[in-house]
């Protein structure tokens, strides 16, 4: 949040956009073993701040399991290093406090609480008991800003349960923003969204991805082509390709994986 940042709004870029002072997430030899079945098998991946990374692959490739392992939900071996701090072996809530946020395939917001309350809870993991036991008064500036970013300011006092599907996903992203996560792991954020909602979500990811490390698990190839700055392809728990959208699309291994499972990557989304 230096003045330079605000003066020149950055765009996400291949390989990150923060230069030498970059935040990073370095995954080395990550393996998740379910009783002999390796759902994630020796995965290496390096993510830099300002790189909008898409994680694609056929069903069962281990994309969600990879996110589960990074966030501490599933036990794993190997190493996940966030800007110098080892994450593996920590508990879910500790990893969250270190600035790793995630969303889920099915939007999970607190349906009975208002949009504002949802965001306020997301912003409050570090609160003291004294603050917790008092009433919420007014709206924190960062929450106001997040409401603006996700475009839900006019719905702040509505219960989150009445939001449309897409709005719930945006609320979840907003919760990650106020949570102050700088690594965002989004599991199929545009699943079930209309075309306009996808467009808006993509622009939202571009905006927030400029200063953070964002990983998007996605099936939608059109969406990936439109917004990714880099892509990692996962199949059977292994990384089979990594690079820019063009590089990955030209990769014969990737074509094979997609041809072998679900028709070609290009034609999959024309339906």
């Amino acid at each position, binding site marked *: 949040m230096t003045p330079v940042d605000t003066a020149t709004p950055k765009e996400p870029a291949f390989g990150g956009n923060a230069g030498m002072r970059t935040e990073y997430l370095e995954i080395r030899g990550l393996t998740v073993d379910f009783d002999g079945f390796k759902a994630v098998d020796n995965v290496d991946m390096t993510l830099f701040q300002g790189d909008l990374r898409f994680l694609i692959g056929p069903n069962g490739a281990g994309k969600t399991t990879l996110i589960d392992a990074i966030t501490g939900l599933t036990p794993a071996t190997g190493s996940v290093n966030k800007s110098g701090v080892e994450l593996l072996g920590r508990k879910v809530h500790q990893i969250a406090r270190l600035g790793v946020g995630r969303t889920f395939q099915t939007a999970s917001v607190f349906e009975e609480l208002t949009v504002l*309350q949802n965001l306020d809870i997301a912003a409050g993991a570090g609160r003291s008991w004294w603050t917790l036991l008092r009433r919420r008064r007014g709206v924190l500036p960062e929450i106001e800003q997040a409401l603006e970013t996700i475009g839900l300011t006019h719905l702040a006092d509505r219960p989150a349960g009445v939001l449309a599907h897409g709005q719930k996903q945006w609320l979840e992203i907003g919760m990650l923003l106020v949570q102050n996560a700088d690594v965002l792991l989004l599991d199929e954020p545009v699943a079930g969204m209309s075309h306009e909602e996808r467009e808006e979500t993509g622009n939202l990811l571009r905006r927030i991805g400029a200063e953070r490390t964002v990983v998007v698990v996605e099936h939608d190839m059109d969406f990936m082509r439109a917004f990714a700055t880099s892509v990692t392809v996962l199949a059977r728990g292994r990384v089979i390709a990594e690079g820019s959208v063009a590089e990955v699309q030209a990769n014969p291994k990737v074509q094979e994986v997609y041809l072998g499972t679900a028709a070609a990557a290009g034609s999959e989304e024309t339906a």
Partner: protein
Amino acid sequence: MRTLLGRWQTWAGFGVAAVLLFGVAPVVLSDFRLSMFGKFLCFAIVAVGIGLAWGRGGMLVLGQGVFFGLGGYMMGMHLKIADAELRGDAVPDFMQIAGVRELPGYWQPFASPAFTVLAILVLPTAIAAALGFGVFKRRVKGAYFAILSQALAAALAILLVGQTSLGGSNGLNRFRTFFGFTLNDPANRRMLYFIAAATLLLVVAAARQLMQSRYGELLVAVRDAEERVRFLGYDPANIKVVAYTVAALFASIAGALFTPIVGFIAPSQVGILPSIAFLIGVAIGGRTTLLGPVLGAIGVAWAQTLFSERFPSQWIYAQGLLFIVVVGFFPAGLAGIAALLRRRRRRAAEPGTAPEPLAPETDPQKVGAAT
């Protein structure tokens, strides 16, 4: 503007309750009925805690009899010692009959009124906190937690029946004084009622503060999506322990007031049946609301008394039926019905404010394609 009105409403609500409890009830009710009403208020104090832990926190506390009993027995022990001292005896009457000449070691600290009051506040709280940490950190929840809490109530009741130094299955009874005031005097019994009423108001105020604070919002979040809360950087166990502990504290205080008001405390007030009975009033009144549990607990207890006076052995069927109907058809309880009516009336009053469509339409084909 709205908060100002809200605050005014709150004070008005407490004012009306105070007038009813302190002004109307003592005038309208006979001494006998007033004392009975005092007993109902004790149940209502337990109910406030259950509303917090179960209604807001999602923890089905089926064993509040444990904490009710702890508070009740500790108070009972002090009262028995005080009575014995007044007569110049070394031990309470029931021990004399059993041939006990010396006060058991664990009774002795309860000779001190200050220790007794402190123990009633601290001991159940500490036990609940330790138990809560053990259970919630291991992510025991739902039916498993409910069964566990119920087993605990059963175990304590069985343990108490076997303790002759605590009166066995008769429990502790025939108290003559309460902190120096003779219980024969109707004025003193009325004072006990006033203490219960004041305690209920305090407990409701405390629960209200908890529910409306950020903690209360967080507790609902934990109830509805515990894992999600974890991914936001909270440890849900800590949040649940607080509500569980507060509920235990309320139950203990209620038990400690129940003992002198009703004149006995026995294993029959501790076990599974009374623990479930505590729950029924809460379910009927509306567990997620602040006042639903209070009114539900008082209402059910009152109905039980009136009903039992006419048809002595059939209340249990009526109670069971009521429970089934409410849980099956009105899961939000009577408070839920009231809220529904209020919403309907408001909608009828201002038809212009129907909720506008929130969503850009979703393309069903895309929904299918993306998953």
